[in-house]
C-alpha cells in the first residue's frame, strides 16, 4: 500500500508540477535546439510552395500587426495559440495547437507528432484557410514554457510540419504575456 501511495504521489507531482518532465521514449528527443531568442511576442514561419499550409508564404506577426490568443488546458498539457492579423490587407488567421498525452505537461524538449495514438504528442498548425490533412507529421521543440494557473505566461517554441510529403512549413512561436510585450 505504501508503495502504491508513493507512486501515486510521484505521479501527482509529475502531472501538476511546472518543472520539465523527462523526455519520453515515445515522441521526444532529449537534444534541444538553441532557444528562440526573440524578446517580443511573435509568430513567424516560412513555407515551401508545395506545402498545403503556407503555400510558399513567409509571415511574421507581432503585437503590432496581430492579436495573440493563447489557451491552456489540462494543467499545462494543452496549449493553443490563435493569431489573427490586424493588418487591413491581411485577413488571415493562424493557429498552432500542442497537446501532450494525458497526464503529461508541456515542458522543454523536442517532440515528434503525427502518430495515431493516445500516447503521442499532437501538433497542429493551420491557417490562411488551409490545413495539412492526412499523413501530417511534425517536430516541435519547447524551449521555454511557463504557466500560472490557467494563464500562459511565456512560451518559446519552434516547429516543422510536413503536410503528408516532403514540403514543410517551419516557424517559431514566442508568447511573452507577463506582461504582454
Amino acid at each position, binding site marked *: 500500500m505504501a508503495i502504491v501511495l508513493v507512486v501515486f504521489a510521484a505521479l501527482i507531482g509529475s502531472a501538476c508540477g511546472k518543472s520539465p518532465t523527462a523526455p519520453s521514449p515515445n515522441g521526444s528527443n532529449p537534444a534541444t535546439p538553441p532557444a528562440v531568442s526573440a524578446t517580443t511576442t511573435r509568430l513567424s514561419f516560412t513555407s515551401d510552395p508545395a506545402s498545403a499550409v503556407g503555400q510558399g508564404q513567409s509571415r511574421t506577426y507581432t503585437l503590432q500587426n496581430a492579436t495573440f490568443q493563447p489557451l491552456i488546458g489540462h494543467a499545462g498539457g494543452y496549449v493553443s495559440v490563435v493569431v489573427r492579423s490586424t493588418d487591413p490587407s491581411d485577413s488571415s488567421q493562424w493557429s498552432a495547437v500542442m497537446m501532450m498525452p494525458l497526464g503529461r505537461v508541456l515542458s522543454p524538449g523536442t517532440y515528434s507528432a503525427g502518430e495515431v495514438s493516445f500516447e503521442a504528442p499532437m501538433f497542429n498548425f493551420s491557417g490562411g484557410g488551409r490545413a495539412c490533412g492526412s499523413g*501530417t507529421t511534425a517536430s516541435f521543440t519547447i524551449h521555454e514554457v511557463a504557466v500560472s494557473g490557467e494563464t500562459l505566461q511565456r512560451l518559446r517554441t519552434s516547429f516543422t510540419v510536413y503536410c503528408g510529403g516532403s514540403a514543410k512549413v517551419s516557424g517559431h512561436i514566442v508568447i511573452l504575456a507577463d506582461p504582454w510585450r
Partner: protein
Amino acid sequence: MRRVLPGTLIVLLLAGACTKQESPTSPTPPTSAAVSPTTVAFTSDPSSSVGRGESPTYTVENATFQVGTDSRFISVAVLPRGATDVLWRFVLHPPTGQVLAPGTFSINNNAGHAFEFSSRGDRCGGAGTMTIEDLHNTGGLVDVLRVNFSLSCGGTVPVNGRIVLNWVPGTGYR
C-alpha cells in the same frame, strides 16, 4: 478499451488532484437520460476541413475513448478500432470567464474557444454553438457528458455532432 481504461483512470484521478475541486456543474445527480451509452457521432460535408464528408458513429464497440479534464476543460479523444490514420479529438473549453455547465455556448474564436474539433493535422476552430445537456464531473472524472455541437469547419455546411459519455464505476465508459 480495457487496456486504455486503467491509464485513463489514473490520468483522470491525477487531473482531479490538480484541480481546485470546483465543479462547474449542478450538484444534482445524473438523470435517467444519463444512461445513454457512450457515443461520439457527427456528420460532415466533403467541404469541411475536418471530417471531410465522413459521418461516423463511434461507441465502445468500435472505438476506444480517452477523456481528460481539469477544472475548466474537457478533452475527448476517439480512436476507431483498427484505425491507422485517424484519431478524432474534441476539446471543450468555456469562453473566458465562464465554466462548462449545462447550457448553450456560442463558439466564437474572438471570445475564447468553446469547442474545438481536430484530426489528421487539421483543427476546426470556426464559429458555431455547443449545447451541454448534462455534465457531471466528480473528482476530476467526467461521469456524464451529453453535448451537441454545430461547428463551421471552413466548408459550406457545418459539422454537426453529439458526444455522450457515460462512466460506469468498475467498468469504464459504456
